[in-house]
């Protein structure tokens, strides 16, 4: 099975390359890259003229909800949504029911993904059993079963000693710990950022410091243990300042940010009071935080961009603000928001944006045959139009809890190619 992609503008962050090239794929691998490839044999050709061809996008923070909450999303629907969003590989977070804290559940997810999934699914395992923060999971066995990283996402490991041990222990497996930073005593019962909006709407606030205290703690523990730590969905200026400082002093720390934290601020809640599609954790912050995130994307303090795709049903979301669950879907809007905002509004070079969606995730989490357009690499490619506008009005995800419905965005996905096969055509 051969596939030829012609005339596209290839963006390849690892080689710092952005030029028109043809790419030939055979049996799921990239076998030729050249200015012009002409073949005598008749094979399938995609004309990518005027389109960007990038390595397949990698989302390091997705909630697929299976097993346990198949009413919100399944591996089948979630991977369809991912493909429609240009993703060829996603990490699925372990806060399922049951949680991915043992070999059997890892295998279940991988088997389901193989049979029903449209793209590559790499499970993230729990740090602690049942995500309770009390007892380490059998991390070695999880690694053997195939987890790509470990995380208790949704909560922090509250006990500093257990977090220390987790960081130390994972060193022998070369696994990265993904940390959700939140001091739950400080954030308790909070539903929006603490400040102007919480005061105006009479909602309990989540102070920025709830995140920042845990960011500092985790940086200190990463320094102590010399282990690899990745902080996910960073949302405040303070967190970014601490991470910037830590990176300067040589601590092995990386981080990601979600598009909603660089596109929206808490002020959106004054425009749409009590709209539960604006309720997520960490909450939408202030303009000052958003500006700091943009700066940190520019100067590479932020390594990756991740969706934090968190599907919830209409029934769950159409409720009193306090009672609705946190989270919004994101897989299908990540790239368009990156293009519309980072590329067009903030003039961030395309190659830098693509790097944070492909090369960096692959590098940080040790995906050896992904994240680059290179001979012998997996034929995972995303082809999109930079300037074609479209309206966000339908989703492949099972859920529709997005604050971006009705938005006009640029950066339309044209083809998603995973393992050499077209899995989405836009």
């Amino acid at each position, binding site marked *: 099975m051969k596939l030829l992609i012609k005339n596209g503008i290839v963006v390849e962050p690892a080689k710092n390359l952005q030029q028109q090239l043809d790419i030939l794929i055979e049996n799921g691998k990239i076998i030729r890259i050249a200015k012009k490839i002409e073949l005598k044999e008749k094979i399938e050709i995609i004309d990518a003229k005027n389109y960007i061809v990038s390595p397949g996008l990698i989302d390091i923070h997705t909630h697929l909800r299976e097993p346990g909450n198949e009413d919100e999303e399944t591996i089948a629907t979630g991977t369809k949504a991912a493909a429609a969003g240009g993703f060829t590989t996603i990490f699925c977070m372990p806060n399922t029911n049951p949680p991915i804290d043992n070999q059997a559940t890892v295998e279940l997810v991988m088997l389901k993904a193989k049979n029903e999934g449209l793209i590559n699914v790499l499970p993230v395992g729990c740090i602690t059993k049942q995500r309770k923060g009390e007892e380490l999971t059998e991390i070695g066995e999880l690694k053997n079963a195939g987890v790509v990283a470990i995380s208790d996402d949704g909560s922090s490991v509250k006990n500093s000693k257990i977090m220390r041990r987790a960081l130390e222990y994972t060193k022998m497996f070369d696994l990265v710990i993904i940390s959700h930073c939140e001091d739950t005593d400080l954030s308790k019962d909070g539903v929006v950022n603490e400040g102007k909006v*919480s*005061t105006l*709407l*009479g909602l309990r606030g989540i*102070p920025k410091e709830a995140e920042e205290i845990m960011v500092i703690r985790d940086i200190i523990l990463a320094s102590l243990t010399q282990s690899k730590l990745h902080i996910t969905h960073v949302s405040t200026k303070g967190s970014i300042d601490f991470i910037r400082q830590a990176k300067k002093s040589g601590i092995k720390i990386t981080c990601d940010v979600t598009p909603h934290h660089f596109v929206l601020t808490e002020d959106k809640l004054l425009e749409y009071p*009590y709209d539960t599609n604006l309720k997520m954790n960490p909450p939408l912050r202030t303009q000052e935080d958003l500006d700091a995130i943009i700066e940190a994307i520019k100067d590479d303090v932020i390594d990756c961009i991740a969706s934090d795709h968190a599907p919830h049903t209409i*029934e769950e979301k*159409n*409720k*009193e603000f306090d009672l609705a669950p946190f989270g919004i879907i994101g897989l299908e809007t990540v790239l368009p928001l990156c293009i519309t905002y980072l590329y067009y509004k903030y003039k961030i070079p395309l190659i830098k944006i693509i790097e944070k969606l492909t090369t960096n995730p692959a590098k940080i989490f040790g995906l050896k045959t992904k994240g680059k357009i290179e001979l012998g690499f997996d034929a995972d490619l995303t082809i999109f139009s930079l300037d074609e506008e479209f309206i966000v009005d339908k989703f492949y995800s099972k859920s529709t809890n997005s604050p971006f419905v009705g938005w006009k965005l640029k950066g339309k996905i044209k083809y998603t190619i995973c393992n050499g096969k077209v899995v989405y055509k836009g």
Partner: protein
Amino acid sequence: MLKQTHKFTHKHLLGLEHLSKEDIELILDTAKPFKTLFTRTIKKVPTLRGRSVVLLFYEPSTRTRTSFELAAKRLSADTVNIAVQTSSVQKGESLIDTARTLESMKADFIVIRHSYSGAPYLLAKNVSSSIINAGDGFHEHPTQGLLDIFTIREKKKKIENLKVVIVGDILHSRVARSNLWGLTKLKAKVVLCGPPTLIPKDIDKIFPQIDIEYNLDKAIKDADVINILRVQFERQLEHLFPSVREYSLLYGMTKERLAKAKNDVLILHPGPMNRGIEITTDVADSVNSVINEQVTNGIAVRMAVLYLLSLNH
């Protein structure tokens, strides 16, 4: 019956935040003639005959519920009380479904009291009835704000430049927020007084014209009005103050404290009072207290609200 120069265009009353100064003044002016009804033997007018008002209360309330019910009845509307304990709410019916059921029964008004902020917004978004917020979480309690302002204006003949001190748990108070919006729109000088743990974050950024004073004795000096909020005992469990005893010591309104204020200072309290805690009995029953008048005025103000909203429904 009214000389209307300003037109009231709202369909719902969700809070005072989104009302203009003119809207508020129109409600107060409309309430005035309704109040004169109360001294008559027949306290009823036919204004809302044939309209239905549903009182949907998810929190216990005697004062506000009764006040709304009397207001509606004195306008000849039909009223229905939904007591939460006996309704299908206990069977797990969602707020939206409950409201849609009421809408299908052609309820013209739904008066809602709910422990979660924003619940009235959820109704306004999902049903076609006029929604009146009778208190939502920590957000707003607009008719309480209006009746407080009505009472102050009646006694002091104006609002502008009056020094109004609001004392207590501002953080969790919907009464405080509605008072703040209403009073600042009418240009009163508002002082918030309470322990720093009970002052909401960034309130000084939202209302740059107000003052915050932690010391009650300093705050009430030169005050024209003191509005004392009810203290919730469970806040102690959240470490917001160490004990009710200490709260009472620092923020309880006593006769001795009152003596330091102006002679003609007005004492307001939205009720129900914790006598001996945030307010002593001798203050509550003093000549400065207008707490009972607040209750009477509440009915007139709510009649005005129902009447004005009915023009747009």
